[in-house]
């Protein structure tokens, strides 16, 4: 595994050694159940609340209790959608989600849409942005919940969350954002954004897999999704994953501490990547290139005349790890719904390449990717029976 050039940090990240070190005592020594009254339990409860305060402080929550620990981004998204929509026994109303949400938001929305709620998918524009005026036009008097992700996991565009939340509140609905890709990577202040709920995932920020959190503003009515022993202030049952939660909080602290230096470094790597790739691969395009507000670490390309998986496998043979479409759905054959939502033609969507850099990426990694990619693309294009046609269409279109 060692010489892998890992360029898929948006799919998952290695846990930072400092995160693992922070977790270790909680496996074998400080193993109490945070709900037990005796010393070992109280010690666990204190550590749990410290982790909660760390997260609350990082996202500028008004109160630590606004942070609920979960098993990851997916559970947070599911809990937010179901929990807010059905709070107080509500069984109907209008829900608005952007069309390029992660499936962990889309699927619960569609589920609700089949059971009494009405769901509208809001299209982003070709710049990869959900525009507040489009949201304002789609909001209705009976809209109860709007969910628009903060940073898109495939194309890396950042959404104008504060404006979207404001527009939502003007019509009396609640606003949730899936921040699985943005927490720790850009400044994330729930009060400045004015949001009601947000989802986070630990394994995207060098924390452990199977961890995450849901921010839920005080006063937001919520029906718990996992039910049972009543942990997490009765909002999420299940014995708390203390090592995991401590790991998540530690990971976030590290992200916050290193961000001032890390953001320009990652941005530089990404820009180098974009420049080199577009310079060396004919007809390649950066998706949602017009967007100025973007995550520092994600770049998504369309490489016409090439199929994504084949490209990925050739790069893999050179020990380069990148992705095409989102990791979760790469078992599927459908082209990315994200790319389609921003107007990318289906035939090009099949040839997308997502590169995401991270803590351990170097310039040499980026250069190695480019060096390896050029002959791979050339070879695949030469095997493509339609490439001449594609080329004619492309140059005709561009000419």
């Amino acid at each position: 595994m060692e010489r892998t050039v890992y360029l898929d940090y948006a799919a998952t990240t290695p846990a930072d050694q400092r995160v693992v070190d922070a977790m270790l005592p909680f496996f074998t020594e400080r193993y109490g159940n945070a709900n037990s009254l005796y010393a070992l339990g109280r010690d666990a409860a204190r550590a749990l609340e410290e982790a909660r305060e760390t997260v609350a402080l990082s996202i500028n929550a008004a109160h630590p209790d606004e942070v609920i620990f979960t098993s990851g981004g997916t559970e947070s998204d599911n809990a937010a959608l179901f929990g807010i929509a059905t709070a107080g026994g509500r069984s109907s109303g209008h829900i608005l989600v952007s069309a390029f949400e992660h499936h962990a938001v889309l699927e619960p929305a569609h589920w609700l849409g089949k059971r009494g709620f009405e769901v509208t998918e809001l299209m982003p524009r070709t710049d990869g942005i959900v525009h507040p005026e489009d949201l304002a036009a789609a909001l209705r008097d009976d809209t109860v919940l709007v969910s628009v992700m903060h940073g898109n996991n495939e194309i890396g565009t950042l959404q104008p969350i504060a404006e979207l939340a404001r527009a939502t509140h003007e019509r009396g609905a609640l606003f949730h954002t899936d921040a699985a890709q943005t927490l720790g990577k850009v400044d994330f202040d729930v009060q400045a954004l004015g949001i009601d709920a947000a989802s986070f995932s630990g394994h995207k920020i060098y924390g452990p897999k199977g961890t995450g959190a849901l921010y839920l503003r005080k006063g937001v009515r919520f029906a718990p999704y996992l039910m049972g022993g009543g942990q997490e202030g009765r909002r999420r049952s299940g014995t708390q994953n203390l090592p995991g939660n401590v790991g998540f909080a530690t990971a976030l602290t590290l992200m916050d501490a290193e961000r001032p230096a890390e953001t320009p470094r990652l941005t530089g790597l990404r820009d180098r990547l974009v420049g080199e790739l577009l310079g060396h691969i004919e007809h390649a395009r950066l998706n949602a290139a017009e967007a100025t507000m973007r995550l520092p670490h994600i770049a998504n390309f369309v490489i016409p005349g090439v199929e994504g998986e084949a490209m990925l496998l050739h790069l893999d043979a050179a020990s380069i790890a990148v992705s095409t479409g989102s990791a979760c759905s790469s078992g599927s054959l459908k082209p990315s719904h994200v790319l389609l939502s921003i107007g990318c033609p289906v035939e090009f969507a099949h040839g997308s390449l997502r590169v995401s850099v991270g803590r351990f990426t170097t310039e040499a990694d980026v250069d190695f990717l480019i060096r390896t990619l050029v002959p791979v693309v050339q070879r695949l294009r030469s095997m493509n029976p339609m490439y001449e046609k594609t080329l004619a269409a492309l140059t005709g279109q561009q000419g």
Partner: protein
Amino acid sequence: MLYSDKVMEHFGNPRNVGVIEDADGVGEVGNPVCGDVMKITIKVNDDRIDDIRFQTLGCGAAIATSSIVTEMAKGMAIQDAVKISKNDVASELGGLPPAKMHCSILATDGLKLAVDDYLKKHGREPIAGEVKSADPTFDPHEDDEH
């Protein structure tokens, strides 16, 4: 979704890539909207496939199945070649992930079309039977269970 070693070997070193310029038969299947396009050209001698080449735009399985089908068909009587089934192709490759089984259809269909094209050029009756993927609106993914 793991590919077998043999799939990876054919994907990495595909056999018989290219186009036979003066081909006796040409088969084209798939469409770019589905993500897979394949073109097979054959040289036929005495109703036997003397030479065969392919070009494929598609995933690892699409390329590997194209490659293996050309290997299997080379030297075969055209009557036998059109009988190669998607399961023959898959098992020759040591199996395919379920989500990728449709790729084998493309490969065998491409070959069938090439054979029928050769027959047609010589005024003979087609022998390949129905070839669903010749229809440009055909989506092989719809065959999948999910």
